[in-house]
């Protein structure tokens, strides 16, 4: 039960962390932080504290999204602002304890930024290029709070939106979400409000609510980061959606490649249950709802909603024909609402601040913010949340800091295996669902991989088709055999066996696959080939006619066919 007492207690506890009497240390411990060595930093700092007999509190937070600075540590010393340190090693981490906590030297050489007004030699964290163009809504808590502690989420205004939603009618909430113009951030961009309305109107019970956290797109990891760093925001979004639609049971479908996300989500669910936010008669209302975690088992196609349903039901994850859409006949034939992690994480902010506030940002048809995982050949790699309509140039050059090592930018890949590669000419394209679709790519789940001049576009197309043909469920022929044929043609081209007619055959095959496949996997699988042919036709010609790979990537075409190891 979220009583005033609990909220007050959580807030005073949070107060004692942000304005502490003993030093507070925050270590970013999401998967990427741990892979970068956060665990050894944790041990080094702990032993340095014990050795110097310093009383301090260590918090394990999620990740701030600045993956290029991992491992990161934040320190709040009594009377001082929160300072973020970057790229620490166990040695520099223990130096930091002695230098800053004992001698008062805040080590500007190790610091990244300070939360608030700049100190001597340390800039304001939120004034950094990486942060200043961002508008964080769904990501506002990541790296700030401890994801395993519900009270920190509550202290930052958590579950207020849900309490507000419980006080209004279901129709009101659906109208609010519809008015906000929020579109599904899982890739397809279907208006969330319409989906909810369809499910709400279907008169069949029980209804199910599913959070799709099967983030299979290679090159995208914002869902993982959200689940690991702020699981309660997703739970709150689910609770609001379930209340609005009238669902009695929910599932979170997380892929099993994300063990830490599963663990943190399980802890979060336990805590919400403990505080009466899940279960029967939530917060003394008539609304009863419970959530269960379902692990995916390594199938990309299960991100498609009907395949996901089949997987939860205990079958092979194979998509089926739609309509009927899940909103009418989903899990076990009952109405089911399926939303992506990022969509749900936006819901509490819409309920708290109102539809107008949300609709005030973004473009005419794409409202709000977009979350991207900026990776590849770019200086500042990480998670960003930017308003819709921002240009690609701003993302790559201002936020991302451009292409490192003085290399030339060649293309940016968005939308994973369903998306496409956009060339330098389109750098000023505003990011929105429709503009990306017009350019031949898609918004997708939000992977944004920057490719430099050392990347061969034919090889990239081959890579995605290899992925698509491996992940095809094998149910419909265009996808199963078509992607395989396309992959083999591309493979031949990269091996120097390309024929003059290959590009035309690829275009023809793509056309049939796009038009006749059963599900989104097949319908979008040719996109990487179509966009690379559209924008980088010269590279295909060089491979086929001159038997040369301009980027020197394709092994068979460099060094006269000698494999360079």
């Amino acid at each position, binding site marked *: 039960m979220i009583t005033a007492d609990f909220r007050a207690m959580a807030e005073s506890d949070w107060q004692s962390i942000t304005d502490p009497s003993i030093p507070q240390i925050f270590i970013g411990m999401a*998967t*990427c932080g*741990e*892979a*970068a060595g956060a665990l050894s930093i944790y041990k080094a700092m702990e032993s340095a504290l014990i050795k110097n007999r310093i009383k301090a509190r260590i918090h394990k937070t999620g990740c701030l999204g600045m*993956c*290029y600075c*991992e491992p990161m540590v934040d320190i709040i010393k009594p009377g001082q602002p929160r300072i973020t340190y970057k790229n620490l090693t166990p040695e520099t981490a223990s130096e930091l304890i002695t230098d800053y906590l004992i001698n008062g030297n805040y080590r500007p050489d190790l610091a990244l930024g300070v939360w608030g007004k700049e100190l001597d030699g340390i800039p304001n964290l939120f004034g950094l290029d990486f942060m200043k163009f961002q508008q964080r809504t769904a990501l506002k808590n990541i790296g700030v709070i401890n994801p395993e502690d519900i009270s920190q989420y509550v202290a930052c205004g958590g579950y207020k939106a849900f309490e507000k939603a419980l006080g209004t009618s279901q129709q009101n909430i659906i109208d609010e979400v519809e008015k906000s113009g929020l579109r599904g951030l899982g890739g397809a961009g279907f208006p969330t409000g319409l989906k909810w309305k369809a499910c709400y109107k279907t008169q069949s019970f029980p209804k199910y609510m599913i959070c799709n956290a099967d*983030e*299979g*797109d*290679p*090159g*995208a*990891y914002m869902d*993982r*980061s959200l689940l690991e760093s702020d699981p309660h925001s997703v739970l709150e979004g689910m609770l609001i959606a379930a209340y609005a639609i009238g669902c009695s049971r929910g599932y979170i479908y997380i892929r*099993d*490649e*994300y*063990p830490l996300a599963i663990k943190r989500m399980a802890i979060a669910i336990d805590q919400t249950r403990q505080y009466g936010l899940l279960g029967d008669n939530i917060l003394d209302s008539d609304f009863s709802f419970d959530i269960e975690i*379902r*692990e*995916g*088992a*390594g*199938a*990309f196609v299960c991100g498609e909603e009907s395949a996901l349903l089949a*997987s*939860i*039901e*205990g*079958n*092979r*994850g194979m998509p089926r024909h739609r309509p009927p859409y899940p909103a009418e006949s989903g899990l076990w034939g009952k109405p089911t609402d399926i939303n992506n992690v990022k969509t749900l994480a936006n819901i509490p902010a819409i309920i708290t601040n109102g539809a107008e506030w949300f609709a005030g940002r973004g473009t005419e048809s794409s409202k709000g913010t977009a979350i991207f*995982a900026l*990776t*590849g*050949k770019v200086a500042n*790699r*990480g998670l960003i949340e930017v308003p819709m309509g921002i240009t690609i140039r701003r993302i790559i050059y201002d936020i991302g800091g451009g292409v490192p090592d003085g290399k030339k930018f060649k293309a940016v*890949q968005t939308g*994973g295996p369903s998306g496409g590669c956009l060339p330098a000419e389109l750098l000023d394209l505003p990011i929105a669902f429709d503009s990306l679709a017009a350019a031949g790519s898609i918004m997708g789940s939000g*992977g944004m*991989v920057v*490719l430099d001049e050392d*990347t061969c576009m034919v090889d*990239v197309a081959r*890579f*995605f088709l290899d*992925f698509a043909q491996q*992940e095809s*469920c094998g149910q419909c022929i265009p996808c199963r055999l078509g992607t395989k044929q396309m992959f083999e043609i591309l493979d031949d081209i990269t091996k120097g066996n390309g024929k003059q007619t290959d590009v035309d055959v690829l275009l023809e095959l793509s056309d049939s696959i796009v038009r006749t496949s059963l599900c989104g996997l097949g319908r979008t699988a040719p996109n990487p080939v179509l966009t690379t042919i559209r924008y980088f036709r010269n590279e295909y010609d060089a491979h086929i006619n001159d038997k040369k790979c301009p980027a020197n990537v394709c092994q068979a075409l460099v060094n006269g066919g000698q494999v360079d*190891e």
Partner: protein
Amino acid sequence: MNVISPVLSFFKKRDDKKTDKEIVRENPCIDCSICLEVCDKGLWPSVLMADIKAGQFEDARKHGIDQCNDCGDCSAECPMSIPLYKYLRVGKVLSQYNKDKSGLIPILLELQSNYGYLPEDMISHIARYLNLSVGHIRSVASFYKSLRLTPPGRRHVCICRGTACHISGAPKLTRETEKLLGIKEGETSADNEYTLDTVACVGCCALAPVITVNSETYGKMDREKIKKQLKIPGDKDENPG
């Protein structure tokens, strides 16, 4: 693949022509109740085993199987060396789930996390419990990439083949690791030490290229780091050919 284990042998049809020796081999329990005496939780492992063998998971639950803490004392003390803990482990997982098809994938994943793969006999256990055909379970297990029907090596190495890893040199890394370990992708080394696989994306794209070893993630890998991480002795790959 054909794994013959004690569990499987029990499910074979009882043959009256069998000698006493064979019958004892199939059900070696002599009702000495030593397992009952050694169990910290006060369970009777041989009774639980009988429940599980008979597919009576409700009875196993009534007899308190969920309290079993996998200590293995019962098997260690058994005078007939019956691998009681094996039955208890399978039974404990199965009895947690309802007799419902929707429990299939969670059961398979949990059993796999205990054993590293899905032995043939376990699939028949699950089939009996969930009232599904063995064929259905095999079709599901072969569909999902995380589910294995063959045992992996002690170090399960997965190289990420996500987009960011691909352009940061994952294909080259895969070739080099194949050479280092002397096995191809998807294979297990002869000494059962390494299994090499690829994974779609582990979501650590900023640290590309990434590998995972037994579910631990390591970023910014190259040949030398892989060698260090996998503790590969010597330079056997330096030999030509």
